[in-house]
């Protein structure tokens, strides 16, 4: 088979990639609760199949485009429904961007599922959990391989749904219940922008298929040059306007400032969920979408949209990093770190380097998933303890977890030769070219990253075990008491193989993936305008700040580890109220509470009051007026004239009736006789006429 | 016209006489005894002896009885029974009267016999008689309905009321047998319904409650003796024989059988087949009489209205299906299913009483 045809063939089978997890979800939704093994196996097998199909497509795309820097893109479009004289199509795409992402999602997802079988082993809603996870995997893969903005949006919303469901998986915790709602609504605000962007794109181009390979009916992204010439809003071209609107969606999903608030709260979900959805894949969907729609962003030269994107990313990166410094919850640190890293990616996109953004997305997915799974292992190993102050010294108890976690941490900090170093370096480089101030801020964020990760490492793994000092933490979750480790008492312990194997595998990638950065750029087919100029500065600066961060972390936390869980954080002692400010996340949530949320609630009360008093008031006024008028008529007209006259008439009729009723004596034969007499008279008349 | 009528009068009266003998002998055998065997060889002259005895017996009329009606009742009992024979085709060449409303005529005439029972019962001024009469009237009126409806099925299939046409419609087929209506789903059901109806109509066991000895002495003919009693008996037997004849005509192919045909020889053979079938029906009646116990009054009426009537209506629908489904295998399957469905439903519905399973105390 010729290569193009082969790709086409594969594109026609793209739907299979999300199909397997979808089926797994459908089957599990009908399963009984106790069928744990079957459920877990089904999910993992389905994910494995998806992974195989994704890899097949991935290798096909490598084989084609890599050498001559020309993207080969195979698509498969079909009609969803018809309306008016046109129709609405959906479609699947097969191109490097999609396949790289799909392989990542399927592969990381596969290992996270394996880990989850351990993490969730004794949860009563095990089946439900894997059902949601499968559904998530299906939607995420569908999002990745869709060639249609509407299909992408649908999957986008579905991953949001799964995120909602999984954050609130332990719905009985009020915090989880609040967090799930917050996550959905916050992303929904972004989605409104996204939806408007879609609708506008549809209006301006008449299609939502991104590529059609058809000159008569070009796809949306094939019309960008025309769109760049048409007018949009706010003095932008249509293309840029749409790009801006779409980016608002991405901001919601990828937790960019100021819509980032949901992501840390989302840590209320089970840790594999945090790893898969809120670190590796879903939150990256915004970045992916921007990458997918990138031609729109660059269509109009010199619009402020890209700058906007860059600054949003930059601000998020620094802002979140500062918060991460002052957190005590092991997962929250990672959550803010994720926010910050997402900021890096977005910044890269804004700086004009899709490759850097996407590559960081991939590497980040691996090592952040690793870190989250690692933290999950820690949490399980310490009997559901999440407060870093109550950990410590775990290196002794959980060696495998420690080493893997260390690799992930180094990758995140950007220590060469780990994966994060390469990808972050590229981002900083591209930002350096675009805007020096942004670069400076980003470098500062890199410094903070190294610092807070070091802090975390020392707090968790170094020193001595501080848990179990007060009461045992695991009273909080009564139902986890019959955990397998009952005989361990309060001591931490290493986790089972199905939990550490995934992080071990992922740590391999966290080490090695960075070396493929250049290849990935080629693979995406973006001409890497690799200017060596400034490279040394950037690299040197970043190495320096990383080293500084590590050192500072060691200085503050490593030299003298915490003795007791109640000890004050050394940094807190140093920074004072600034630390509290950071610990309380810059009081953003409180700000939102008093502004937006209060405003919305007031609006609600106001319109409720309007309904109750104004609208109903007018109504009641009308009703009372009518009633009053009717009373007047009743007394004057009815009671006096009509009733009086009517009574008199009735009386006379009744009297007549009384008289006539005497004719009725009730004897049937009498009636009959009269009847016959009448007949006789009729006959008589007939006879004589 | 005269020959057939004479034939009918002589032959069927003879059959009547010897039916009584056969019945007594057969019942005797069923009940492990001999039956009449003193008058002539095998008791062959018993009917004549009975007749003579009844002729010379004293005729007693109760003093307060309504003399005229009391006298009239047995006469009226016999007349319709004999009239019934006028529409039964005995052979291809032997049809007394071919009325174009034959079946209807038969029913019309047979209803008159109920009057005789009532008159006899009422005129006797005896409460047992009156009770018997009332029972008889209720029973006959009830069972007439499903019977007529069962006949309507046949009439619909043939398209004529004439008994001769009905008999002719059943000729042909393999050996002149396969076209008998009893070999159709609806015909079989109709046959069963009609047979049950005919037995009830002529008040034969197990439907003999109008003359149930253990309850009301002898029912409407308690106060009759001598030849009047004989006339009642005669009317009853003749009616049941005539009904058997009509059953044969409508369902069992009438005079049709292997070898029957229009010629003289065929005619004789056809008469042979007719009487064979008639004998079969008579023996069947006797057999049932000897086998089944008497039913209760409420059971009797409930059975007529709740089982036979719906079933006969379903049967009419089945004939309609048969008529319109010209593809025969389909018609077979459809009508059979339909009727079985109704049968099952009705038998489920009718089984309202829970009868405990019988336990045998001494035999095991």
């Amino acid at each position, binding site marked *: 088979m010729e290569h193009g045809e082969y790709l086409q063939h594969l594109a026609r089978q793209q739907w299979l990639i999300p199909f397997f997890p979808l089926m797994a979800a459908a089957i599990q939704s009908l399963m009984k609760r106790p069928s744990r093994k079957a459920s877990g196996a089904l999910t993992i097998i389905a994910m494995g199949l998806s992974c195989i199909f994704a890899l097949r497509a991935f290798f096909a795309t490598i084989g084609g485009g890599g050498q001559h820097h020309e993207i080969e893109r195979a698509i498969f479009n079909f009609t969803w429904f018809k309306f008016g004289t046109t129709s609405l199509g959906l479609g699947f795409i097969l191109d490097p961007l999609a396949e790289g992402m799909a392989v990542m999602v399927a592969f990381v997802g596969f290992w996270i599922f394996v880990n989850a079988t351990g993490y969730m082993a004794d949860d009563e809603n095990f089946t439900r959990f894997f059902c949601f996870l499968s559904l998530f995997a299906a939607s995420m893969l569908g999002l990745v391989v869709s060639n249609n903005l509407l299909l992408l949006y649908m999957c986008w919303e579905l991953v949001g749904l799964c995120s909602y469901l999984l954050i609130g998986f332990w719905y009985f915790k009020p915090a989880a219940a609040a967090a799930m709602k917050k996550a959905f609504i916050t992303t929904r605000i972004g989605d409104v922008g996204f939806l408007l962007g879609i609708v506008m794109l549809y209006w301006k181009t008449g299609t939502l298929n991104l590529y059609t390979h058809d000159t008569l009916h070009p796809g949306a992204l094939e019309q960008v040059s025309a769109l760049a010439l048409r007018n949009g809003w706010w003095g932008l071209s249509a293309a840029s306007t749409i790009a801006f609107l779409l980016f608002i969606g991405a901001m919601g999903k990828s937790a960019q400032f100021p819509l980032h608030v949901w992501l840390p709260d989302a840590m209320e979900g089970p840790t594999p969920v945090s790893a898969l959805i809120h670190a590796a894949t879903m939150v990256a969907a915004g970045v992916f979408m921007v990458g997918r729609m990138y031609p729109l962003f660059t269509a109009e030269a010199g619009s402020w949209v890209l700058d906007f994107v860059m600054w949003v990313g930059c601000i998020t990166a620094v802002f979140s990093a500062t918060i991460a410094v002052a957190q005590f919850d092991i997962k929250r640190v990672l959550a803010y770190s994720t926010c910050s890293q997402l900021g890096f990616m977005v910044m890269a996109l804004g700086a004009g380097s899709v490759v850097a953004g996407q590559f960081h997305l991939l590497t980040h997915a691996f090592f952040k998933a690793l870190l989250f799974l690692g933290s999950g292992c820690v949490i399980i190993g310490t009997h559901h303890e999440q407060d870093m102050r109550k950990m410590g010294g775990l290196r002794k108890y959980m060696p495998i977890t420690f080493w893997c976690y260390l690799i992930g941490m180094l990758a995140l900090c950007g220590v060469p030769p780990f994966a994060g170093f390469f990808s972050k370096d590229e981002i900083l480089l591209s930002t350096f070219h675009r805007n020096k101030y942004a670069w400076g801020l980003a470098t500062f964020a890199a410094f903070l990253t190294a610092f807070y990760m070091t802090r975390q490492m020392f707090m968790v793994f170094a020193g001595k075990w501080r848990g179990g000092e007060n009461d045992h933490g695991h009273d909080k979750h009564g139902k986890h008491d019959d955990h397998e480790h009952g005989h361990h008492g309060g001591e931490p312990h290493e986790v089972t193989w199905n939990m550490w194997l995934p992080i071990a595998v992922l740590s391999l990638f966290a080490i090695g993936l960075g070396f493929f950065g250049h290849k990935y750029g080629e693979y995406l087919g973006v001409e890497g305008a690799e200017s060596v100029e400034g490279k040394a500065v950037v690299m040197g600066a970043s190495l320096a700040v990383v080293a500084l961060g590590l050192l500072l972390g060691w200085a503050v936390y490593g030299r003298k580890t915490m003795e007791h869980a109640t000890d004050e954080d050394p940094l807190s002692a140093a920074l004072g109220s600034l630390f509290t400010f950071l610990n309380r996340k810059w009081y953003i949530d409180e700000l939102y509470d008093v502004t937006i949320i209060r405003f919305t609630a007031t609006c609600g009360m106001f319109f409720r009051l309007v309904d109750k008093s104004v609208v109903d008031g007018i109504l009641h006024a009308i009703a009372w007026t009518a009633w009053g008028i009717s009373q007047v008529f009743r007394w004057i007209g009815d009671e006096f004239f009509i009733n009086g006259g009517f009574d008199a008439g009735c009386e006379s009729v009744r009297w007549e009736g009384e008289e006539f009723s005497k004719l009725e004596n009730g004897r049937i034969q009498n009636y009959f006789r009269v009847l016959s007499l009448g007949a*006789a008279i009729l006959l008589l008349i007939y006879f004589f006429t | 016209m005269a020959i057939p009528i004479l034939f009918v009068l002589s032959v069927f009266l003879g059959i009547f006489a010897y039916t009584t003998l056969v019945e007594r002998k057969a019942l005797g055998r069923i009940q492990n005894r001999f039956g009449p065997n003193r008058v002539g060889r095998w008791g062959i002259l018993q009917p004549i002896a009975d007749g003579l005895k009844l002729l010379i017996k004293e005729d007693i009329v109760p003093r307060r009885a309504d003399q005229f009606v009391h006298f009239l009742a047995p006469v009226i009992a016999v007349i319709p029974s004999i009239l019934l024979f006028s529409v039964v085709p005995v052979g291809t060449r032997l049809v007394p009267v071919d009325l174009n409303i034959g079946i209807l005529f038969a029913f*019309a005439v047979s209803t008159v016999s109920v*009057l005789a029972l009532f008159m006899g019962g*009422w005129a006797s001024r005896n409460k047992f008689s009156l009770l018997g009469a009332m029972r008889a009237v209720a029973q006959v009126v009830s069972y007439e309905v499903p019977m007529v409806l069962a006949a309507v099925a046949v009439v619909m299939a043939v398209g004529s009321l004439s008994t001769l046409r009905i008999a002719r419609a059943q000729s042909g087929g393999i050996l002149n047998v396969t076209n008998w209506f009893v070999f159709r789903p609806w015909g079989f059901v109709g046959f069963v319904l009609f047979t049950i109806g005919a037995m009830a109509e002529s008040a034969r066991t197990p439907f003999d409650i109008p003359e149930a000895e253990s309850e009301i002495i002898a029912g409407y003919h308690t106060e009759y003796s001598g030849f009047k009693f004989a006339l009642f008996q005669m009317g009853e037997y003749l009616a049941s024989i005539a009904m058997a004849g009509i059953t044969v005509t409508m369902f069992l192919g009438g005079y049709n059988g292997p070898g029957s045909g229009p010629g003289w020889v065929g005619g004789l053979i056809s008469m042979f087949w007719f009487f064979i079938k008639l004998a079969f029906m008579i023996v069947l009646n006797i057999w049932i009489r000897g086998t089944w116990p008497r039913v209760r009054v409420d059971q009797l009426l409930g059975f007529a209205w709740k089982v036979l009537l719906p079933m006969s209506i379903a049967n009419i629908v089945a004939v309609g299906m048969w008529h319109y489904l010209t593809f025969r295998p389909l018609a077979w399957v459809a009508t059979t299913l339909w009727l079985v469905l109704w049968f099952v439903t009705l038998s489920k519905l009718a089984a309202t009483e829970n009868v405990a399973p019988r336990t045998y105390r001494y035999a095991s």
Partner: protein
Amino acid sequence: METIFWILSAITVLGALFAIMLRNLVHCVLSLILFFLGIAGHYFLLRADFLGAVQILIYVGAVAVLMLFAIMLTRHVTGDEGPREVLGGKWWAGMGTAIIIAGLLWAIIRKDQLAQILPAGGAQTSMVEIGKAMVTDWVVPFEAMAVLLTAALIGAVVIALEEVIRRR
């Protein structure tokens, strides 16, 4: 044929007269049956065989029997009204009216030319035709009749069983 007509007419008229004149109710019904049979005979004479059979089936077999039942159920088991007054109040008015009507009808029929015609003869309406007409042209009345009969059946049962139902 004329003889048969006159005999049947005599039976009919006598039956009718006895039916309304006799004191014993059962005798009344029996003579009513005679009247019905006479009418059936007339139908046969008029070559309406089917109707004749139906007349016997319905009137003799059903209506008359029903009347006998009614008599039995209203306690006059003997059927004899006894010494009580059998004629209703103002009976003379009814009788008079009937006689006037009879006389007038007689006079009208006498006067009319139509009274002199004889049967036209010719082809009779066959049973098949009647049957077909019944389910084609006359199907609506036919169905209406079916409904009416059902209603009458149910109604009669309900009326007669009223007390039983109430007791339950």
